[in-house]
């Protein structure tokens, strides 16, 4: 890694300009400098290590046992939990439903959020109010949102069915969260209500970074509104779109609260997510070993996305850090 040279970059410019990154300082001083720098990270490192990394390692260990959660795990079963996991229809269903939510988000929610962002980036009267209103559900907890919508989508008595009844569309209503075929769309509807404003805000921030001159120039060259969107806005918004897609994938992977209070994963697993399955096995059925295997699977899936995210989104940021460091210090 290049970071081995970074250590001495500062002194290299001060003491030996143009020279090789040298070992001119005494060893003792270099060690104490290193310790000073690292000591500032210690509180965070301890907290992070003890409560994020260690539990994940422990889950990895426990996933090799058949364990009820009390005493020490003794019944070593090797990879049995994992071979059971990849054949578990509920887990496979979780994966499928996660994919479905991501698909819904990318194909419907994000384009909708983008459209709203483009709309509210124009000079409209009251646009600040609309922006604030559309984003507001983001600050409500998923529990409050979920309970609210479980009452709005209550079969027959809920607002949704009453409204549909009042305008003569009774047929469109129904059981919402209580039916296997409608629970996922209903859930997605609620997620869109809660989260599209968040993505809209990301896009708005991205749109503000696009110089107005580009649009002006294109307009003079005769590009119509759609062409300007397609060939200027969309390409320049690329990084923002990527980020927002990543975030909705992560959101879908870890979805728990909203599902737990609306459908609890039912009916008959029809809306179960990985986190719900994990909770069921871990805290309802006390199959801690099996549930740990599930959390490792969740971890691996997150890891794949974390690495992809690092590669495609963060890379530019860290590259900048290294080059800046050399240039300015």
């Amino acid at each position, binding site marked *: 890694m290049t*970071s081995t040279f970074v250590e001495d970059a500062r002194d290299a410019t001060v003491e030996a300009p143009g020279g090789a990154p040298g070992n001119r300082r005494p060893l003792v001083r270099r060690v104490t400098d290193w310790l000073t720098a690292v000591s500032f990270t210690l509180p965070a490192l301890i907290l*992070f290590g003890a409560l994020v990394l260690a539990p994940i390692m*422990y889950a990895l260990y426990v996933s090799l046992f058949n364990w009820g959660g009390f005493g020490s795990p003794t019944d070593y079963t090797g990879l049995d939990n994992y071979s059971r996991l990849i054949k578990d229809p509920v887990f496979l269903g979780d994966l499928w439903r996660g994919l479905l939510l991501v698909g819904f988000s990318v194909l419907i929610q994000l384009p909708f959020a983008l459209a709203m962002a483009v709309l509210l980036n124009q000079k409209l009267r009251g646009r600040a109010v609309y922006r604030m209103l559309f984003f*507001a559900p983001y600050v409500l907890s998923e529990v409050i949102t979920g309970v609210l919508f479980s009452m709005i989508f209550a079969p027959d*008595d809920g607002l949704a069915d009453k409204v549909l009844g009042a305008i003569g569309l009774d047929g469109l209503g129904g059981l919402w969260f209580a039916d296997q075929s409608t629970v996922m769309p209903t859930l997605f509807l609620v997620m869109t209500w809660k989260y599209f404003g968040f993505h809209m805000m990301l896009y708005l921030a991205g749109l503000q970074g696009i110089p107005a001159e580009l649009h002006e120039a294109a307009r003079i060259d005769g590009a119509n509104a759609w062409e300007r969107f397609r060939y200027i806005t969309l390409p320049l918004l690329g990084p923002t779109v990527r980020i927002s897609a990543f*975030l909705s994938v992560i959101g879908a992977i870890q979805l728990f609260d909203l599902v737990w209070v609306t459908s609890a994963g039912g009916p008959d697993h029809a809306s179960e997510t990985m986190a719900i399955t994990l909770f069921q096995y871990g805290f309802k059925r006390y199959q801690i070993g099996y549930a740990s295997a599930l959390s490792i699977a*969740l971890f691996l899936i997150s*890891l794949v996305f974390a690495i992809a*995210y690092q590669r495609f989104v963060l890379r530019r940021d860290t590259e900048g850090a290294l080059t800046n460091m050399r240039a300015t210090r």
Partner: protein
Amino acid sequence: MSAPDAVGRRRFGKVPLYLIVWLVGIVMVTPLLYALVSGFKSTDQLSSNPFGLPSPWVTSNYTDILASSSFWRMLGSSTLVAIGTTVLTVGAAALAAFSLARFAYRGRELLFTLFTMGLMFPFAVAILPLFILLRTFGLLDNPWGVILPQAAFGLPITIVILRGFFRQIPGELEEAATLDGCSPFGFFWRILLPMARPALGTVSVLAVVSSWNNFLLPLLVFSNETWWTIPVGVQQFQGQYAADIARVFAYLVLAMVPALAFYAVAERQLIGGITMGATKG
């Protein structure tokens, strides 16, 4: 085409746009208004008169909740947990971000990568072993049992944002401070932190909101009502008063008020925070 025509068409051309945002606005606001108004009805009224204004206006749903000690206790508990989490997250993250932004040393990028990996780990990944860990250390039914893990999981995003901010502060300032005899910690404490106040505000707001809305961890850690936070309370209340939905609506509205009020006050920091967090991390 004459000029007034073009102006007229342009003004008229915006009507569909207004119609769209107006419609979306209605969809967004209706659930909230419906909950607010329904809270002023009795449950019988609610089923016989779902759309109209309450007649008579029933205030007992709201006043009963406001008079109950459990509601205020939950508000207090949520506040305590949020403040504890925020102080711990921001404190530890600021120190770490200082090191990662202002020092050049072996292993720095590795450390930063370690923390940024944490950005992608959902709570659910670690919740089981975390629960066992907290049980082992006797932290169940103890606010620290929620504060510590929340702080740990809040570190990555806070470090990423603060590191980005700390890096922008010119190196000359640090050199001047060092020449004047400032220790690294002195520079951090007396110069960097005061300069970073806007960024600290932003990350604090993010930490408060995510702590305030967290559900899974307090649900597991607080089996006893004493420490229940608002999301846990809302879920329990819904279970308890399933038949009296007007009362549940009132409870929801009152539970929303602190979050919405906080949003109204800290809108700029919150939106700055989410866009910064997303673009920097």
